[in-house]
């Protein structure tokens, strides 16, 4: 099949490119762009969490920034207040994000569609305001800075993420691992269960699937991804700020996901890369790059609702390939309850 071989070639080119970034990019453009690509990878995980929920389970979350914040502050406060070293702080960030996702998911996942989207924003706003008002702890919108503990020590030599190359590979490794795990889940029985719930939650419960539990599992998994993203971000900037918990951040991630292609594995990465690159290029000449973001969002929604990767899948026309979710007419709506 011509398409398969084309995709394999693309994957190999993409993989080779990503591995060679710390040397190729400074040579061709500027070493500044290595950190831009690092940032793209970090934010693409955030977008992937939105994608997992929306593209595969049919839940549009507009409040993932909350778990990003928990991941971020878990690391920052773990290092700054609790004196944790690198890996425990990383673990704390991920764990607190997942715990928060579980607690809020227990309630949020009982709602569907519009109400679910709204309550995810409400939860994230509550914690945003709490974070902003507790300035001594969180630094509010200004945030807190901290110094980075080393990654590990080996034979007397200290390895730390302050080295941009090491940082890049660390982020690349973590993001790749997360995407690989996501790939496994999507193609597993659980993943098919997710899709069934997405396509027709009424039917899903009639064949015996526990819709509530499946949605909750997905929500916690998404919280984990966002938490990892937040933790990486904290390590990346040695910085944590409440402003990243605001709903506008969540909203941008939703746009990246949908423009890149919801319901595809690499859609979020493509969308995130597109928007961040545009931001970097445009903002150096013109400060109103948000205008372009807004225009692109609207154009994408009207002309390419399946996103870039979705268009690619459609163009090469593989039958049976997962398409972007669309509303299904149902005689009864199902209230998912525990």
């Amino acid at each position, binding site marked *: 099949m011509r398409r398969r071989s084309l995709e394999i070639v693309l994957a190999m080119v993409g993989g080779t490119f990503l591995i060679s970034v710390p040397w190729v990019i400074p040579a061709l453009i500027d070493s500044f762009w290595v950190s831009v690509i690092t940032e793209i990878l970090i934010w693409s995980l955030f977008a992937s969490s939105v994608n997992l929920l929306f593209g595969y389970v049919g839940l549009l979350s507009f409040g993932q920034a909350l778990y990003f914040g928990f991941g971020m502050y878990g690391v920052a406060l773990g290092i700054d207040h609790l004196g944790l070293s690198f890996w425990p702080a990383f673990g704390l960030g991920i764990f607190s994000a997942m715990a928060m996702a579980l607690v809020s998911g227990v309630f949020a996942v009982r709602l569907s569609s519009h109400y679910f989207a709204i309550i995810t924003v409400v939860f994230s706003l509550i914690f945003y305001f709490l974070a902003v008002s507790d300035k001594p702890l969180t630094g509010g919108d200004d945030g807190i800075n901290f110094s980075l503990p080393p990654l590990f020590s080996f034979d007397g030599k200290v390895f730390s993420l302050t080295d941009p190359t090491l940082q890049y590979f660390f982020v690349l490794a973590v993001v790749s691992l997360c995407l690989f795990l996501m790939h496994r889940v999507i193609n597993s029985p659980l993943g098919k269960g997710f899709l069934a719930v997405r396509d027709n939650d009424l039917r899903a419960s*009639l064949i015996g*699937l526990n819709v509530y539990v499946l949605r909750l599992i997905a929500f916690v998994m998404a919280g984990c991804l966002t938490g990892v993203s937040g933790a990486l971000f904290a390590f990346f900037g040695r910085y944590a700020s409440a402003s990243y918990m605001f709903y506008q951040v969540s909203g941008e991630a939703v746009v990246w996901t949908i423009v890149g292609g919801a319901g595809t594995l690499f859609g979020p990465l493509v969308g995130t890369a597109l928007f961040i690159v545009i931001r970097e290029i445009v903002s150096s000449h013109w400060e109103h790059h948000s205008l372009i973001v807004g225009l692109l969002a609207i154009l994408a929604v009207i002309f390419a609702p399946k996103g870039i990767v979705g268009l690619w899948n459609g163009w090469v026309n593989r039958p049976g390939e997962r398409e972007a979710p669309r509303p299904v007419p149902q005689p009864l709506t199902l209230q998912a309850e525990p």
Partner: protein
Amino acid sequence: MSATVRGDVLAEPVLRTENLTKRFGGLVAVDNLSITLAGGRVHAIIGPNGAGKTTFFNLVTGLLSPDSGRIFFRGRDITGARPHVISRLGIKRTLQVKSVFPDLSVADNLWITRQARNRFLHAFRPAARDTETRLRVEETLEQIGLADLAARPAGTLSYGDVAMLEIGMAIISEPSLLLLDEPTCGMSPAETARAVGKIRELSRTIDLVIIEHDMDVVFGIADDITVLAQGAILASGGPAAIAEDERVREAYLGRPEDEDFVEEALNA
């Protein structure tokens, strides 16, 4: 859940309700319904529109909870249980508006229906590795004649094929009791014949309750018929008795003298 072989009359009726009532605002959809359905026979539930037939199915499958009354499945009280719990006890159903998983392939529709029987869905193992499920899916695809459409997204299928897929999903889930809600609704005569054939096959091993409007179908395959009107039982009995029942004719047609109904029924 093992299926029942027709001809075995079980001591415990398959389905039994006691004073089942459901109201929607001021409207009484199901009115103090006490019905007993014996195992090993094909039951049809008929009645004019709004008689409460689908509401009855919704109550039995847990999509609605009754205002009062109880529901027993093989002696077990399932009143108020959640839909997925009732499903895992062995009661499966099709919906009036044909409803499958549109973005999943035909094969995957069957696949997930089969997997839903398991307590846990594995999270990290590739789905393709489950050979038992894959074999059953292939078997079922052959049975319902959709093998060459296996990779197509279910949403792109014709109406008749979607109905067959629903029946396939019912087969692969090995139900103990199967509720079919207007299985031939909207079908052409050819599709109807195909569906009726499949339903007859199923009736040999599975307890069936069918809601139908097509009298040919009803009188062709039902052993017992219950007629509902305004949420209550109007009449019940074998096909011949129902065909001659004046009240039934009145409920459907409003004119006790109308002969066509009887014609249709007796010539089925």
